[in-house]
């Protein structure tokens, strides 16, 4: 549905995005993930026809976004990072203004506005000036603006930025509901957002795509490590604990704060397919120590993200 080919955008000397290519199928919910300044917003601005690429092209349903700009813009609903609203208009006026520009037939406007108000929870603020609204409500008005014409493609750029945790949950639920029926691109630097809503993740860093897959495959990716966090009571010889654990094949030991006196805390890192739990247990039992706690952590998407986007 959306095809991005060798897309490059330079601002002066700086390359914001560097020959990126990807495709998005209809119905996918794509999480476009990257640290701040990685090129997410630039890519979105090109897809939405705000500005052209320096080179490369974007096609939607086979139409070039630059040559068929107006047609493409009709298909897309876009919530930019800045949440563009007119503070002096009230919510109804604003959405009405968008409806006119979206060429919605007069007969459907009122009922559609009502749907938006219900879907986005705007009932209480319908007649308030946008300038008076809280950040959460403003974001919802922005979302309503993006979906009011029922677009095939929905692009949301950092939709939950600046919201409090409750509002974040609400907006995320709204996004999940919307994603059931649309092709959706969600730009964010917040990982839990992607894990919660997306069925595909693209990670972009310094203008290049560094990972592409479902959240599950990424998590289980090549970089996979697992970690055991242990607390061991070894009254006699605490130093021996780290030493003996280090002798386990494929284990890397790092000290961790102990919870109480006479206890050793450690973090044992091994490859993802190498489960050391049993060996650790036996080692501890044979040495006559006591295993107070053992917890396994498999690499989270967060680790993948940090691995991939760390400054080289």
């Amino acid at each position: 549905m959306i095809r991005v080919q060798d897309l490059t955008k330079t601002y002066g000397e700086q390359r914001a995005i560097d020959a990126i290519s990807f495709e998005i199928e209809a119905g996918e919910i794509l999480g476009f993930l990257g640290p701040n300044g990685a090129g997410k917003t630039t890519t979105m601005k090109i897809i939405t026809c705000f500005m052209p690429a320096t080179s490369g092209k974007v096609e939607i349903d086979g139409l070039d976004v630059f040559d068929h700009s107006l047609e493409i813009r009709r298909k897309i609903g876009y919530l930019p990072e800045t949440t563009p609203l007119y503070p002096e208009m009230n919510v109804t006026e604003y959405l009405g203004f968008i409806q006119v520009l979206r060429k919605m037939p007069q007969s459907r406007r009122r009922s559609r506005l009502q749907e938006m108000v219900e879907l986005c929870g705007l009932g209480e603020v319908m007649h308030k000036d946008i300038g008076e609204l809280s950040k959460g409500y403003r974001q919802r008005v922005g979302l309503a603006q993006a979906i009011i014409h029922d677009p095939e493609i929905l692009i949301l750029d950092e939709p939950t930025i600046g919201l409090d945790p409750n509002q974040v949950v609400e907006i995320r639920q709204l996004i999940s509901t919307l994603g059931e029926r649309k092709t959706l691109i969600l730009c964010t630097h917040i990982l839990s957002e992607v894990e919660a809503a997306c069925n595909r993740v693209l990670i972009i860093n310094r203008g290049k795509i560094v990972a592409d897959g479902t959240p599950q495959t990424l998590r289980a990716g090549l970089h996979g490590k697992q970690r055991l966090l242990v607390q061991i009571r070894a009254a006699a010889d605490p130093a021996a604990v780290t030493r003996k654990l280090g002798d386990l094949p494929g284990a890397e030991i790092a000290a961790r704060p102990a919870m109480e006196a006479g206890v050793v805390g450690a973090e044992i890192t091994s490859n993802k397919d190498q489960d050391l739990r049993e060996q650790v247990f036996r080692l501890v039992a044979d040495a006559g120590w006591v295993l107070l706690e053992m917890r396994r952590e498999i690499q989270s998407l967060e680790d993948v993200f940090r691995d991939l986007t760390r400054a080289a």
Partner: protein
Amino acid sequence: MLTNTWAFTRRELKVYFNSPIAYIIIVLALVISGWLFFLDFFLAGQTTLRPLLTGWLPMVFLVFVPAITMRLIAEEKKSGTVELLVTLPVTDWEIVLGKYLASLALLGVTIVLTFSYIITVSLLGDPDGGAIFGQYAGLFLLGATYLAIGLFASGITANQIVAFLVAIVIIAAFFLVDKFTPFFPGPLASVLEFLGVNYHFENMARGVIDSRDLLYYLSMIFLFLFLAVRALESRKWK
């Protein structure tokens, strides 16, 4: 095309009239020009609107018009709403034209409000109707040209103050250019005179409506609206 343009015009008019901006600007323009006009109206003893329509109002417009236009595009750039506008299925011309028509309406209202002076002078004497019509037509076209310049100035910056000042500078250049003709050789002088707004305005103010003057104003308006569209499009320049 028309529905979109009209949607922008309506929105801008609402912004103007729902806030004190329009009222303050209009009242100031009328009070200042009216006061200057009546300072020596009774001393001169002539029932004519000429000093007002060809002297004071064009001068007041020099500041009045940029004050109307400065926010039109600059504010959208500043607040980021320009990103919304240009990603909606509307053309840049529709945006510029819609905003221009709104500012034109505001100018129209201001000019219509000075019609009361026609009644005043008619009661006091017997003014030349043809001249007054020409002066009003000229004044409207002059203002319309200034508005196009102001809209362009608003399009090149995200800062309203900059837009205001740039508009004043460009308008002043066209307003004053024919004052410098004595310093230039003949052919160049007449070119300068033709470029300036006053030359054409003077023709109309005498009650002579010549297609060349109309063409001058219309091409100035078109030129600056075109430049405003280009300024809005500048995001697309590679």
